[in-house]
């Protein structure tokens, strides 16, 4: 009797061990999945909208967040409009108040995918990739495709690039009075040091 009982117990133990092992596998898979994500909270975005011989219209944010999933190439980025700093405080106020309406639309976002991303091919010299996705500024979303240069960095990768955006694509109104002082195409530079 006693012998049979312990045999049953053994089977139960064996089953729960398999379950436990499966669970462990899931946990390990998940955590290693998380480890594949590279993130920054201090990315840099600069934009330049100056016209020659007029007052400089440019600003920079040093607190841009971005995340890259190394396994899939999925990429997302977020910046607060109020975080952009101008040289002239009044220009910054007008940027927020009149152009970007940052109370209504506090952030600009991007979500997309780096095509054919393979982390094993990243080296110390920058390599060009195509980044495709949706750029949302001023509450308006537009599909974009830009070139991003990616190189190896300590504990992650460095992604930099430049692209242009038109204010009218994002319903950002520019009154005729200042039309000639602001460029038609805004040049945007970004620099993200993504790490584990």
């Amino acid at each position: 009797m006693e012998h049979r009982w312990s045999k049953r117990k053994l089977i139960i133990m064996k089953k729960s061990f398999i379950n436990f092992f499966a669970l462990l596998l899931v946990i390990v898979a998940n955590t290693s999945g998380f480890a594949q994500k590279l993130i920054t909270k201090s990315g840099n975005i600069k934009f330049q909208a100056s016209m020659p011989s007029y007052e400089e219209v440019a600003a920079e944010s040093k607190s841009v967040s971005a995340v890259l999933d190394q396994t899939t190439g999925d990429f997302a980025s977020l910046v607060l409009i109020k975080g952009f700093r101008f040289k002239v405080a009044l220009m910054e106020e007008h940027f927020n108040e009149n152009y970007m309406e940052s109370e209504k639309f506090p952030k600009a976002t991007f979500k997309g995918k780096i095509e054919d991303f393979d982390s094993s091919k990243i080296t110390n010299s920058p390599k060009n990739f195509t980044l495709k996705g949706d750029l949302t500024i001023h509450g308006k979303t537009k599909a974009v495709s830009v070139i991003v240069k990616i190189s190896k960095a300590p504990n992650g990768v460095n992604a930099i690039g430049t692209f242009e955006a038109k204010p009218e694509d994002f319903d950002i109104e520019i009154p005729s009075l200042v039309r000639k002082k602001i460029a038609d195409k805004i040049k945007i530079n970004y620099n993200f040091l993504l790490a584990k």
Partner: protein
Amino acid sequence: MKKILVPFCLFLVTLAYSQDDLLKSLDSTQTEESYSTATFKALQLVTLQTTKMPAKKEFYFVVSHRFGTVKDGFDSFFGLDNATTKLGGIYGVTDWLAVSLSRHTLNKMYETGLKYRLARQNDNFPLDIVGYSVADINTFLEKDQYPGLEFKHRMTYVQQLLISRKVSEKFSIELVPSFLHKNLYNPDIERDNQFSFGGGGRYKITKRLSVNLEYMHNFDKPDFYKNPLSVGLDVETGGHVFQLIFTNSQSMSESGYLTNASGDWGKGDFFFGFNLYRVF
């Protein structure tokens, strides 16, 4: 083996971690400054100060005019023949402290001012509170008229507290308790210490246009003066702020504005003028 199915499904779900979730994961990384900005477009509501402060190292040049009374009609071209001028500058020492100096045609007045922020409206505090201290120096008074005149008699002091709230994107209000002390006064008709209370507000008609209104009630004024009531229109054009105003108090100095309102709106006796700001 059925039991393995559950964790296996879990595993699949985590693989489907999408770009949306990636973006959502960034939301928590950013915390926004909750300070209210642009409660008012300009440093002045109409003639009163607003709670707006110049930024650090920012210099504002201000030119203001108040013309003669509109009542005179074509005789003085609705007052435009009799312009009074204020020329001045305001400098932001820090983000919370500004100094100002101006010269006024009326009473050949020099005005020095100190403006300092005490509190800012944010998610945790409902009001902007700014202190404003003014010393007016009247250089129009002459020894021939007042043989005993000393320098101190030229001085008038005003202390104000500016309390504002940006109620909505378009609408902001301000309350202003104000205390004034004159070193030279005529005890038969006026008091040396005068207390006023009032305020005003602005309403944005468009992004770059707002209508402003302000009123101050002077509790210690002599009967023959009125309480200042003014209406203005802010026009913002890039680096300039242009304010068109109508008021029953011609003076642009704080003390003159509060105590010497001579116009009477009811009789069509008011003044046209403007404030022009240029930021450097």
